[in-house]
């Protein structure tokens, strides 16, 4: 049990120091549009992986009680 991998929860974008986080806010606009694109891409991907008929999927998910 030698190497312990990441023990601290890490934020994406890596090791942001407070300063770099601050300077990030200065150039807000390009980042904001990047974020919108990222979100669009995420939501597109979700639409492709989910079963198209949401209602059927949800209704079909019936188990018996456990434990």
């Amino acid at each position, binding site marked *: *049990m030698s190497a*312990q*991998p*990441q*023990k*601290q*929860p*890490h*934020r*994406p*974008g890596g090791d942001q120091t407070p300063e770099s986080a601050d300077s990030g806010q200065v150039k807000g606009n390009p980042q904001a549009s990047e974020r919108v694109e*990222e*979100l669009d891409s*995420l*939501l597109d*991907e*979700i639409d492709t*992986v*989910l*079963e198209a008929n*949401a*209602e059927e*999927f*949800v*209704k*079909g*998910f*019936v*188990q*018996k*009680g*456990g*434990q």
Partner: protein
Amino acid sequence: MDRRVYGVETEFGLIHHPETGRGLPPDELARYLFRPVVEFGRSSNIFIPNGSRLYLDVGSHPEYATAECDDLIDLIASDRAGERIMHDLAQWTEERIRDDGFNGQVYVLKNNVDSAGNSYGSHENYLIPRTTHFRRLSGILLPFLVTRQIIAGAGRVVPADQENEAHFAFSQRADHMWEGISSATTRSRPIINTRDEPHADAAAHRRLHVIVGDSNMSSTTSLLRYGATDLVLRMIEAGVPIGDYELENPIAAIRAISHDITGRTTVRLRSGQELTAAQIQRGLLERVTRFVTEQGSHHRHVETILELWARTLEAVETGNHGLIDQDIDWAIKKRLVQQVAARHGLELSHPRLAQIDMSYHDVNPQRGLFHLLLTRGLATDVLSEERITRAMTSPPPTRAAVRGEFLSTARAYGAECTVDWVHHKLIDRPLEAVMVKDPFAAQDERVEALLDRLGDRGAQLRELSGDERSQRGVTVALTEKYAFTGEAAPPEPPLI
């Protein structure tokens, strides 16, 4: 206790969703899913080489119980390994049912509630000293557990009913708890179960069995959930005064708290005081922080846990959920639900959002929504890929290591054996069965001696590499650790 043994048992939801028509019923699907398990261990209830237990529970829920762990990251890695095993089995099942003429996808969901209101659990086990006064323990632990959902809940899109509109709740399990403390699990789910099977020296220890928790997808949330619970237990065990938060009605409180995502709902204490869940958690966190300052950290994650705990309470208190929307399951899920609702202009009662809720818990790394967020760096993680893969085959350094070695060696020699949490028995040598009562013991001389009876292990067994193992079996977790390379027994000399 400075060192504690932890374990978590997870029941998974299982469905087949064909391209058209009805899917296979859950029990039939579960039998498919567990065929490789039965093939490996000749039963649908087996211990596997990583020391954990894999079985089909009541109601055909596939279930995975982690090996006993004495480190939180080991625990979380073992739990995640269980998700991977279920995913591997589901992939295999999808192919098999296709061969048998059924199309569509197989889903394994690590959640706690289906669309008909059935619930299945995520049960935590904590080893505690037998000397812990149980009345004092429950007096402190119960209000902690009732309010813990605001820091560790998995979040839920609650459908509309006659009385309430659809809304977002902190917890999956809160509505399914019926009692504070009791010995039952199925009939009347209690928050703390008193069933006392320590799987250890009963004179020294008991096993605290907590069944109120939601199944977590986020390893960061898991760290806070188990870590905070351990810290509260540690204070109880140390006998320090903690303040009185005993609730007048824990079951009414757990539901009221869950259904108000603003966190403003107050609950009544036995003292008559009215407090919010965050105020109760704040009081406990302050006491824990003081305790850690006085006593020091007992493991290397304490600081991380305290920081997360405080930040999560701040998010609830201020309503700024963005503070934790990459770290805490309910907040991660809530953000995603809101984003999808905003894009398509959906009301919260829309089935698409219930589907998002369920799919968040899909264990498939390419399809599950939590995993998509993780891959895109939109959720934090305390595990590495390497650590998870290792946990699929390697037991943690506790009694699980004794069990894993015993199983793998006996299998290599083709010797039939039975094990459970405590016992190790070779079928041919029933009188030499060994009980290992110490769950911390990563080695046991008696078990070693028993295995030596099988042959010269050093000369006859070769350990397979991870690569070799990943080529074999439906899942690497169900593969042999050793190849037998010894000489076959010398042939009988020819008769003259």
